[in-house]
């Protein structure tokens, strides 16, 4: 069985809250004896000025126990991004990529790529929220991740691209009909928000490169 826990080397603290000002960071790295695992970052922010405002952002790779209540095959490896915001009303957005055709032995490479995406996303988050970047090393060892794991990022981006191209990326909105994203325009509409840039930009680039390749091959 693949050992995901070796990825602990890239995080100072795992499975414990890291509190920096109004922000709580949590790196979940877990694997059970049946091979189910989870690697994710969970960030939450309590706004002290507006007492009831709360924001949570979660992102990561996992393979869960089968769950009959789930609307998807939770035991298939998946990459999930969750954004939740509570003000007067609450809003949530979930993006769920299912990696159906991944060989078991390849999963460790995807997990390494996920560590890179988590690191880039954390840096972006620190910058956007004006958190002292010196504190980033309390959550992730950025230099080690970038120097040792950067090459694996592309594998995960490739997998997102395959999900987008070959699968059905379905948008579910309460009270509206589901629809399938098949155009770049809709991809931009749903994925282009600030914290998702480390995922969205390389994916968009991959789509554009492939579009160019396809159109030039059609001309020939």
């Amino acid at each position, binding site marked *: 069985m693949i050992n995901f826990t070796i990825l602990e080397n890239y995080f100072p603290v795992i499975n414990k809250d890291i509190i920096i000002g109004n922000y709580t960071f949590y790196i979940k790295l877990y694997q059970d004896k049946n091979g189910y695992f989870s690697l994710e970052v969970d960030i939450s922010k309590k706004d002290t000025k507006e007492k009831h405002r*709360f924001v949570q952002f979660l992102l990561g790779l996992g393979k869960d126990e089968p769950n009959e209540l789930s609307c998807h095959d939770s035991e298939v490896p998946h990459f999930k991004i969750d954004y939740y915001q509570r003000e007067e009303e609450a809003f949530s957005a979930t993006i769920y990529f299912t990696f159906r055709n991944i060989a078991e032995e390849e999963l460790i490479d995807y997990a390494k790529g996920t560590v890179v995406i988590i690191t880039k996303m954390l840096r972006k988050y620190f910058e956007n929220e004006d958190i002292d970047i010196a504190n980033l090393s309390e959550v992730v060892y950025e230099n080690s991740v970038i120097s040792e794991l950067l090459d694996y990022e592309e594998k995960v981006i490739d997998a997102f691209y395959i999900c987008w191209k070959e699968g059905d990326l379905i948008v579910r909105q309460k009270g509206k009909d589901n629809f399938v994203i098949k155009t770049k325009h809709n991809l931009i509409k749903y994925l282009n928000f600030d914290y998702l840039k480390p995922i969205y930009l390389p994916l968009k680039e991959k789509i554009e490169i492939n579009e160019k390749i396809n159109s030039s091959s059609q001309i020939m």
Partner: protein
Amino acid sequence: METELDKIQTTITIPLGLKNRIRKLKGSMTYKQYLSKLLRDRNKLAHNESYIEIQNLVRKSAVYSFGYYKVTFTYNEYNNSENFIFDIDIVEIRNKGALESIEKFKKNMLGSEKLQSYQELILTHKLYFELLEKAIQIEIEPLFSHKSRMDDYDAWKKEFESLGLSKKSFDFDVMRKLRTLENQGDAF
């Protein structure tokens, strides 16, 4: 496809409250037709590949009473999405009708002796889980009560599963709070 088993009638034991709610929802359909429809709907959603789900969740208010206390709290109105979470938040605490800060509430509940911070944490987390129980009673099952210790996550997990609540709700509404307690953080 119909099998021989489909021709044999049987009974399912369910609480009366749940049966009444199904009766209200099924309209003119028979129970058999309605349950078959639920299965079809579920299968339509099941095993979809990748998805994006966007939801605007309605915040609802409720009051939880004990002794002279009234605690007004908010939570998300239940919907059957697997991305649903309750997200309990306290709006105000009143003691005999007068507004009281959470700090004063802790002091009053623990007595005038020197406060021990861990006791404070237990107190606010206990209140949090009582509010979660109340929200579940309002939204899902009026007879629900948590059958074990507050920090018995295994019992919570089984209860969430039997209520049909999602893993995400369990992670957010239960595990996250138990993690806060373990890390000696405040519940609210």
